[in-house]
Each structure stands twice: as structure tokens, then as C-alpha cells.
């Protein structure tokens, strides 16, 4: 046809791509994790409550758990704390905490003051374990299934909405199926 229509055609195509880009943009700040669908990283770290004891990923196999990365220096973690307490009270999935690059004494005091939603807390002083999980900002929460596979990752403060819409259905679905 008219080859001068090519620029217009190309532009309209671009507009479509940009429109899709806008639609996806709320998720832009969040990078998709390559860990989803793959086995959770192995770790063996000292526990916060008793540094002589080790928290091992191997021990956690066989049941669902939520792996929550936090620190006392992180404002968003303080904001999500009430939600974590609610999750603990619901008693459906245990919370395993990873205290990321933090001060042990301050962390213990924080949990004493605000309440401890975690079944157990592992201490990552060097930051190496967090890197294995692909953590780039606290708080981050991973849902791991009984086979040790990461099924979901949430970046940012956990909300009631995320719990109800993303985490609970995944846990319940498998329970209902089996």
C-alpha cells in the first residue's frame, strides 16, 4: 500500500507497547525472583535466642513455612509487624525470621517489646544468607512448601491483603488437594 503509512503503523505499535508498560508499572519496582519454583537455599545459621544452637534449612523440610527477612533498622519491618503477629495467631503457617545485618541485643529487645511472631529467628550477620535468597531490601517474605520449593515471594511490608489473596490460597489449595 502506501509505504508512507509505515511510520504511523510503527508508532501505533509502540503506543501499544507503552500502554502495556503502564499497565504493568505498579509492579515495576518489584523484580521477579528467579527463586520462585526452585528449591529454597540451604542455610545453617545461629539462632537469635541461643547463638549456640543452629537453625537449619534441612530441619524445616516437611511443612510450609514463611521465611521473613527483617532488621531493627528497617522502618517498613516495624510497619508490617502487627500483620506478622496476626499470621502467627492464625496458626496456619509458622514464621521463620532472618535477622539481616543487625545487632543481636537490639533485635532481642525489639521482639520483647513488640512481640515475637517467629517460631525461630536465624541471624545473618554477614549478609551472605540473604544474598543466597536474592534479598535486595527488607522486608521480604518467602513462602516455602513442604518439599522445600519456594512458591511465592513478597517484597515490602506484608499486608493482610497479601496474606489473604496470595499466601493462604496457596497453602489451602494443596491441603484441600491432598
Amino acid at each position, binding site marked *: 500500500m*502506501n509505504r*508512507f*503509512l509505515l*511510520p*504511523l503503523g510503527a*508508532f*501505533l505499535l509502540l*503506543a*501499544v*507497547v*507503552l*500502554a*502495556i*508498560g*503502564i*499497565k*504493568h*508499572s*505498579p509492579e*515495576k*519496582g518489584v*523484580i*521477579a525472583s528467579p527463586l520462585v519454583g526452585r528449591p529454597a537455599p540451604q542455610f545453617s545459621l545461629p539462632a537469635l535466642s541461643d547463638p549456640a544452637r543452629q537453625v537449619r534449612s534441612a530441619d524445616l523440610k516437611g511443612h510450609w513455612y514463611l521465611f521473613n527477612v527483617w532488621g531493627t533498622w528497617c522502618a517498613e519491618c516495624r510497619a508490617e509487624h502487627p500483620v506478622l503477629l496476626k499470621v502467627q495467631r492464625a496458626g496456619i503457617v509458622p514464621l521463620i525470621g532472618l535477622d539481616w545485618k543487625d545487632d543481636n541485643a537490639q533485635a532481642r529487645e525489639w521482639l520483647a517489646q513488640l512481640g515475637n511472631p517467629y517460631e525461630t529467628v536465624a541471624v545473618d550477620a554477614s549478609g551472605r544468607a540473604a544474598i543466597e535468597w536474592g534479598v535486595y531490601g527488607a522486608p521480604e517474605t518467602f513462602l516455602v512448601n513442604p518439599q522445600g520449593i519456594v512458591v511465592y515471594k513478597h517484597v515490602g511490608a506484608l499486608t493482610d491483603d497479601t496474606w489473604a489473596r496470595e499466601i493462604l490460597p496457596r497453602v489451602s489449595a494443596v491441603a484441600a488437594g491432598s
Partner: protein
Amino acid sequence: MLPELGHFALILALLLAALQAFFGIAGASASRERWMAAVIPAVAGQAVMVGTAVACLIAAFVSDDFSVNYVAENSNSALPLFYRVTALWGAHEGSLLLWILLLALWTVAVAIGSGRLPARFAARVLGVLGVVSFGFLLFTLATSNPFVRLDPPAPDGRDLNPILQDPGLAVHPPVLYTGYVGFAVAFAFACAAMLEGRLDQQWARWTRPWTTVAWSFLTCGIALGSFWAYYELGWGGFWFWDPVENASFMPWLVGTALVHSLAVTDKRGLFKSWTLLLAILAFSLSMLGTFLVRSGVLVSVHSFAADPMRGIFILAFLVVMIGGALTLYAWRAPLLKSAAGFELGARESFLLFNNVLLVIAAATVFAGTLAPLISDALGLGTLSVGPPYFNPTFLVSMLPLLALLSVGIHANWKRGRLKDSERTLLLSFVAAAVLGCGLALGVWAGGGLLGALGATLGVWIALSSLVDPIDRWRRGLSLPRAVLGMTVAHLGVALMVVALTTVQSFTVERDVALAADGSARVGDYEFRFAGVQPVEGPNYSGVGATVVVMRHGSQVAVLRPQKRQYWVQRQVTSETAITMHRGNNLLLALGDDLGAGRWSLRVQIRPLVSLVWLAAFIMALGGALAASDRRYHVAQAAQRAAADALGEPAR
């Protein structure tokens, strides 16, 4: 009171822009003289209203009116007056107002200069500019009103981002935007020509000075931004291929092609549809840049706060504006055939290659910048693109261009007669190769193949550019401004190539840890650390280090890098100390306190990096010189006579 006045002024400006657009375009199509006569008052009125709005916002900043949300977000009572004014364009809403202000000023300039244009054509040009103004004003009022009030007013402001508290903020955005917005004029000229269904050499002659001036401003604006990043961010980088930088670079590349294409259309009536398309493309890329920065579709250190709502609005605006222009193009371009010819070795050929290569370069940057978006939309997963992609791919189109530049300068119009310049070409190439390789291998030992290649190309371009002016001088001929401008601009290109080559090949960078009185040797220089002291400023406090720089035993400079913490936003910034010595840029940045009086420091030696920005300014100067050539301004009487002959009322 004043903010409401400002808001009201913007609404009036919106209405006036609508009138300007309507009277301009409809008036010209219907040949209604009274309507066309109403355009200029509308332009003036809109400019006055926009100016009023800007003045109101400045007043709010200066008087610390924290009941205005925008002021509360971007200012603070401790902020020095200078930054209180420049904070006007420190964030999204205010920078949009700056856009609109500059567009109004450009429109006024065009209106003043429209005296020598035929009435219908001028009305159309101003009308199209009115459409653009209308779109931006509507966008601002609907989604980004800077006059929104805060109730109750904030006790104090959140302060301007410390990185922006710098003289660079005063100049970079205004100059850059002047360039960006200036391409709207070329766009308007193009649309007017398409609406009229006629595009000839005269049209090109009118469009050229406007486009060249806009291009000069954009060149300066980009250079200023790069220079600002260099000394403000302090790690010696001056170009990161960041999406927002690319958003300004793409229009620049296409704008350069446009400037050259206009020359061919002016001279020989050729490349009409090319020139038309480039004019549309340059402004479209400016608009696309605006979109990318404000819509949140791309991640960048540079972008304003993201908001999908704004993104949708700008996208709709883009579709209407650019879609409309491209539809006009599809309709009118087929009629623009010309029967002129030229041969392979002719100047037209080289300008054709120039156009093609610049567009390819722009397309490559485009692909890389939008790759994450495209990959995401096509479901190909997340993709991330940075300098390791842009650097090699940009060179792929630039190296041929730079090589052809030296040859093309000697080509004549229509029949190249390159055979006549064969000897000159050969001599200049050999001289360049000798000088270039000598520079690369001798003065700065090392650098390898790329260094020698870059230096040779740069010197060759310089020599080739000087051949014609020297020849004219020898023959006692005058040197028209247009030729002088072209020569200066091309010399700027040559300098840029040489500077980039040396910076890439010979930069030295090292991080060192020093105790008081400790010293480190980097390159040819010795850096002796003399300790830190506390420093205090109007709205910050911090520590400053003193470092003595020595070379071959004698003192060369004293550098004082600082680390500052701004009180309000509590952001820590590093102020790099920079000094020049014998063409080398020495940068020193203060790192961390390692305890026991030891501090870490980053030392960089960058040879000839200042020449990069000097080269850019020389290019811009060349453009300005060329645009001021008399033949664009003279023969007004002749043009009026021609317009009269056509039965058109010239103003």
C-alpha cells in the same frame, strides 16, 4: 491568594491556547482573515498568563508559603534563596510549568519572526504550537497542578533534594528544555507545510535557523547535564546511558540529522519527505522523553515520581499529536517527489549516509532504552540494558559516520568531483594517521588500537574541516557565517572524538585507605592526606578532608573533598574535589571513616575529560553561528514581493 491567582492564570492560558490553536488552523483552512489576525493576540495573552503563573509560584517559594503543597515538598525555610527559586523546576509539576513557559516563549519568538512568512502559513505554525501548548496545559491542570494547597499548611518544608542544591540545577533544565521545546517549532513548520500541501526550498530556508538554534540549546543542555553529573556525583562518570539521558540524546541524534537534511532540501529541493519525517520524529522523541520520565514505565535514578495516571494521559496526548502528524505525513508525503539528481560521490550522497547512520544510532539507543518494556510486553521476561550494550552498538553506527565525515566535506553538490580532492584527501588522511597514532602511542603510552583509531579519526575530521576555509582565505574569498558555523561545529566533533578516546583509554582510578600524613601514589601524582575537620553550611554540616597533591616532588594542588549531611532530608552527599593540572582532571572523593584516623579516598585521574564538554559547547557555538547567517534574515523585501505576487497578504 497568589497561588489561586497562579492557578487561574493557568486556566486562562489553557483557554487562550485553545483559541490560538483554533484560530490558527481553522482560520487558515477557511481563509478567514479576522480569525488569523486573532492568533497573535492569543499568543501574547497566553505568554502573559503563563508568565504570571510562574511568577506566582516563584513568589510562593521565595516567601516560604508552605500552604502550597509543591513548595512544602520541595523547599525549606533554611534553603538559600537561590535554590528556593531554582527549586521551581526541581520536581514534576514545576518542571512541567517550565516546559510550558519555554514553549510560550518560543511561540512568541516565532510570532515576532513570522512577519516575513505568508499569513496563512504563519497562522498554521502558531496554531500547531497552540495545540501543543493546550495539551501540556491540560495535562498540568488535570494531573499535575503545582498550586494545590495543603490544609493545614505544613510547619516547614521537606527541603529540596540535596543533590539538586547545586548551581547546575539553575542552568541544566532550562537550557535543556529550551532545546527540547525548540524542536516543537520545526514540528509546527512541518505540520503547517503538510496542512498546506506544499513544501519547497523556501520552506526549508525558513525552518533552518529555528531548528539549528534549538539544536544548539539541546547540545548545551545535554553537555551541562553531563558536566553536572560528573562533578556532583563524583565518581568520574559523565554518561551512563541512563534512560533519561537517552531520552534527551535520541532527539539530539535525530535533530542533527534534521539540521543536515534541511540543508539538502534548502539547497536542492531534495529529501523533502525525509526532512518532514525527521522534523516529526525529533519532536516526537522529545515528547516520548517526557513520557518516559514521568510515567513510571522505566526505572531510573533520574525519573520523577511515577504515576500511571499521568502516564496514560501523556500517552493519549502522544497518540493524538504524533499519530495526527504521521497521518498527515502519510497523506501528503507521496506528493513531494522531486526530479533532481545526484551521483554517488556527491555531497547529497554523503548527507544521505549521514542521515541514515544518525537515524540508525537513534534507533539503537531507542531499542536499548525500551528493551525492558518491549521484552516485558512480548512476554520475553525481564531484560536489563546498560553501558555494555550501548557502548559497542553505538560505535557500530558512529565509526562509519565519522570516517565518512572527513571525505564528505570535500564533495561538491550534484557532481561530487571527488577526484579533484583526491590528493587533499590522501594527504590529510596520512597526516591524521601520523598525528593520531603519535598522540596515542607517544604522548600517552598505551591505549592500544582503539586509542590510535579514535585519535586518527578525530584529527582527520579536524584537518578536513579546515581545508575549505583555508582555501577560501588563500583565494581571498569571504567566509560566510554558515560555512564558519559548519567548520566550527565539525571541529567540535573532532575535539569530542579525541577527548572521548583519551578519557576511555587513559583514565586511572583507585580507592585508597590513608591515615593522617599517609600518602598514596596514583599515576604520576602523589596524594598526601592531611586529616579531616568538621564543616558547616547554611543547611548542612559534615566533614572536610585536606589532601595535598604532589608531582615530581613539588606541590601541584590542595584538594578539599567533603561529606555533607543535610539537616532536613538527612541525606549524606559526597562533594568531590576536582582540579585541573596540565590537561588532567584530578578527582578526589572522601569515602568512609575506617577508624583510628584512617579514611578511604577515591582518586581518579582523567586526562582531557574537560575537553568533552568544551567540544560540545563548540558544536553548539557552530550551530549558533550558522543560524545567524545573513541570508536567513536578508532579502525580506524580496520575500515580501514574492508573497505579494502569490496574492498572499504578507505581514
